[in-house]
């Protein structure tokens, strides 16, 4: 895949925003420039693209592991310890809670939960991810999300419902992967 600009463009369009969000949850220290780490991570990924093995892990997981190393290097250079999460809520508890009742507020403050959310969003088909981000992160109404996706209100509602189900599944998988290895 090395040197294939079209393939790189596709990967970049798909994962650039998600990787940035992932890094921002890793380092959330305003004195460390997230954009620098993000940029270095992409450069490192391109230069070692030949070492990526799609049978071992997903591309985004591989990208995140590079970003994690870059973030650690950056903290070390700045003589700072990696930021500690505001909450010690363990993401593996999400799987049990997400379907059964309102999630506790401490879950939302956990850096590990937030990075798992990003991994889950990155694993979704682009159409699902766009809908979830528009509706829940950008605060669009279903009508506005439908217009963005070029769909009818009913079709958008149905798409959102499938996107939520896929997200819950991806999140369970991401939290499982995080803690299994």
């Amino acid at each position: 895949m090395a040197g294939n600009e079209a393939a790189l463009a596709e990967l970049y369009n798909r994962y650039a925003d998600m990787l940035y969000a992932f890094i921002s949850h890793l380092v959330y220290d305003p004195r460390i420039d997230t954009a620098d780490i993000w940029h270095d991570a992409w450069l490192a990924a391109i230069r070692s693209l030949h070492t990526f093995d799609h049978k071992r892990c997903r591309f985004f997981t591989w990208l995140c592991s590079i970003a994690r190393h870059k973030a650690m290097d950056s903290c070390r250079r700045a003589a700072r310890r990696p930021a500690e999460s505001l909450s010690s809520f363990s993401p593996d508890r999400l799987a049990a809670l997400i379907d059964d009742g309102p999630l506790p507020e401490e879950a939302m403050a956990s850096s590990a939960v937030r990075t798992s959310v990003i991994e889950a969003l990155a694993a979704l088909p682009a159409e699902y991810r766009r809908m979830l981000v528009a509706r829940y992160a950008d605060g669009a109404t279903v009508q506005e999300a439908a217009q963005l996706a070029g769909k009818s209100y009913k079709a958008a509602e149905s798409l959102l419902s499938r996107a939520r189900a896929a997200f819950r599944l991806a999140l369970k998988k991401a939290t499982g992967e995080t803690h299994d290895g």
Partner: protein
Amino acid sequence: MMDNNERTREENVARLVRAGLPAEARLDPRVKQDTWHRLSAVCRANRSDAFPNFALILLAGVTGFMSLWAVFELMVLKKPLAVLPTELVVVSALNLAAILPAFVIWVKNKRRQYV
């Protein structure tokens, strides 16, 4: 119509997505575009590095051939070193001449990589 369970699940998903993508975790579109230009330049540079430049292969081939020729005359034809000045001068000259174009090509590749 959504039942209560479905409503709770939707609220959970909404809160998680909001927690995962707050304003400070959003990438500036201009930074994204600028970075793409640099990455595609690196990608192009990697492609030119993937296979050695033709001029370098030719120079290495000629130099290697001349060296083997000189070694063959010395070892197989048992010519004394003193009677091989021409070959040795040619091989040395080619070796020296190869340095400049190789350096120029290397610098060009590096500059393309950091545009």
